């Protein structure tokens, strides 16, 4: 087990280094932060001095070496825009994203498993067709559109929920609902497919021969076997949520890491971009590890 974790950690470290190199140089190709930090009227000297102040005048390789050196000592640099440590900025935002992702995925997984399983149990039936069409439409509607319509309906017209922001539990409902739609549609389809396979398998026949009821057959016998591909997809979807739900965060004024990343690259706040990428990549790595553990937990055949 430990050996497995170590092997994965090495692989991830390689990916992480590749990621840093790529982001570092690519982001610097996108332009000069001085032009964005200072107003258009600022003089050339002011811009020059700004670059000098933030070490942007050194050759890229020197900057890179300095950055790597700093990161190795745990220093991720300062945010150009916010004049505070980039890591603090990122971690603050990441906590929000993490909660948003965890809660959303928990709800999505729960709902998709129940709906997908029931659809599979009566494959081709009315419920199956209905859930297919709904999940498909859900997967092809732009989320910003849904978000704004939801605000208009539920906050403005019905006044049931706050429009946006953070503060109470009610504030979470709309963003989570909007984020819910797309992964739900995808995971329902995967659960359905996987469950159809599991329900037609031989051990389900055995269970029926034992006189086990439909409920336990679906949710005890078949489901656990059907979960492996489902968990993979849940992982992929969770990863994309961890990378930040930019649109939803933007519309609902949710202080997450996705909006932070996009804002930071718009403002060429490179240190924040890099720190954000590192933190999310690390989180995704840990999540993948958890998923592998879940595999082993669900399926004893994988344990060694």
């Amino acid at each position, binding site marked *: 087990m430990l050996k497995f974790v170590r092997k994965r950690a090495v692989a991830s470290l390689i990916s992480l280094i590749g990621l840093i190199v790529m982001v570092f140089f690519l982001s610097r190709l*996108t*332009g*000069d932060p001085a*032009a*964005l*930090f*200072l*107003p*258009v*009227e*600022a*003089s*050339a000297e*002011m811009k020059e*001095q*700004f670059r*000098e*102040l933030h070490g942007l005048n050194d050759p890229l390789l020197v900057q890179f070496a300095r950055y790597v050196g700093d990161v190795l000592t745990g220093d991720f640099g300062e*945010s150009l*825009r*916010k*004049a*505070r440590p980039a890591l603090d*900025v990122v971690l*603050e*935002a990441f906590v*929000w994203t993490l909660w948003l992702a965890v809660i959303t995925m928990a709800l999505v997984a729960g709902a998709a498993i129940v709906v997908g399983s029931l659809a599979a149990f009566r494959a081709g039936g009315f419920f199956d067709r209905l859930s297919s069409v709904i999940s498909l439409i859900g997967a092809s509607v732009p989320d910003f559109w849904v978000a*704004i319509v939801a*605000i*208009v309906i539920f*906050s*403005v017209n019905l*006044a*049931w929920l*706050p*429009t*946006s*922001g*953070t503060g109470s539990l009610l504030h979470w409902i709309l963003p989570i609902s909007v984020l819910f739609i797309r992964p739900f549609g995808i995971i329902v389809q995967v659960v359905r497919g996987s469950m159809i396979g599991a329900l037609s398998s031989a051990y389900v026949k055995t269970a029926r021969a034992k006189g086990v009821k439909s409920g336990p057959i679906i949710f005890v016998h078949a489901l656990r076997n059907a979960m492996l591909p489902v968990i993979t997809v849940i992982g992929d979807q969770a990863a994309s949520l961890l990378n930040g739900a930019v649109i939803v965060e*933007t*519309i*609902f*004024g949710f*202080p*997450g890491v996705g909006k*932070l990343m996009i804002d930071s690259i*718009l*403002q*060429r706040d490179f240190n924040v971009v890099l720190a954000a990428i590192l933190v999310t990549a690390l989180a995704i790595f840990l999540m993948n590890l958890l998923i592998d553990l879940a595999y082993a937990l669900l399926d004893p055949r994988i344990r060694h």
Partner: protein
Amino acid sequence: MKKMLVLGALMLGSALSPAFAGSGPIKIVLPEEADLLEPCMATRSNIGRIIMQNVSETLTELDLRGDKGLMPRLAEKWEQNADGSWRFHLRQGVKFSDGTAFDAKDVKHSFDRIMSDKNACESRRYFGGMTVTPTVVDDHTIDFKADPAQPILPLLMSLVTIVPEETPLEFVREPVGTGPYKLTNWTPGQQIVLTLRDDYWGAKPDVTEATYLFRADPSVRAAMVQTGEADLSPSISQLDATNPATDFSYLDSETVYLRIDHNIEPLNDVRVRRALNLAIDRQAFIGTLVPEGALLATAIVPPPTLGWNPDVKVFPFDPEGAKKLLEEAKADGVKVETPITIIARSANFPNVTEIMEAIQAQLQDVGFKVDLKFVEVAEHEQYYSKPFKEGRGPQIVAAMHDNSKGDPSFSMFFKYASDGTQSGFADPKVDDLIKRASAVVGDERAKLWSELIAYLHNDVVADVLLFHMVGFSRVSERLDFKPTMATNSTLQLSEIKIK
């Protein structure tokens, strides 16, 4: 249901307890979060809107609400010394929010801090091309000597925020100022809270506490005021401004124009530039893509600015005239067929894509070949500011310029002088007028600016001036507040009254 309850509570509150009326906390929702609350960055609008004059005050203050001109704030009065330097007499008994007393040393430190190379204070830009030396005369008197002499130095001082002399040169995250409010909570990404100080030197405002929230989407901002989640949104979309009881338009200080690069044929020909101006049906935009209330621009600065020239008339919409001018130019061998690129910034102002597409269509109607290119802010800046790229084709940059400072000097040099960073041409007469106007005060100054504005518009045909824009705000009915041109950059809580 809940909404009714809230409304009911509000009505009850106002009907039964007049004692509460008149003061209380408010919530303000802004489009863009302040990433810094650094006083010396307060000239940037997303920061200034929160702390300028609320937390950090300046020596002088320009009145944009009335017509009082430059008013005293931390300086009680000022005069010009014989040697051209300016002497400011400071208000006494003023305390910073950290309890220290305000004196001339703080003013000197504040100024030195802005000019320091240890930081990137943006208000330094107003002091480009001059050397200003502050000298403390006594605790409550300070001299500023500028070389060359600056007739508008007191106006410039309305841009210098005062911090205690203990403030480090590097950027701070907890602004300390002499203003009526102090920062009590800043949760990045969520909110900023300013709370009224008990020991403020001036009149006590109605607003006891202001919570700033940030939402990027304009319809969300409008919805928040409607649902009572916020009391004031200084900028909402024109489309959402449908309720006359809460939604107000106001002339903001933004001017939209097309900057022409005179260096490249065919834009080097004045007839071509005039044709551009005649081809555009400016009036058709008003009330359609540009909100009702916006003004057609004849200068890069809005009307209340010193020297704004009422005699300069907007170019008429005259496609025939434009075609004729083009034919003339063509007859003289000007390559009017060369495709011209209009470079615009995406999301620069509301409806920018539609407006630019419409302008493109109108120019094409009279025979121009026009490409439209949308770029993001950093790339736009490369087209807009010098040095321009070598080997470029004929280019027109659509841009928006903001001058709410009351004096054209903040615009004219940058946009029109030969050395100006965004200037698309070089004209000795323009340079001379700018230089002369900058050196004088009063009516003389106004006259020279007027002359320059007319010359640029009628003779040089420097650019295609389009609109002085209006903004829309939604103000809760419990507040008494009318946004002004200043609202873009400053939002003084003391000006907000609670009914």
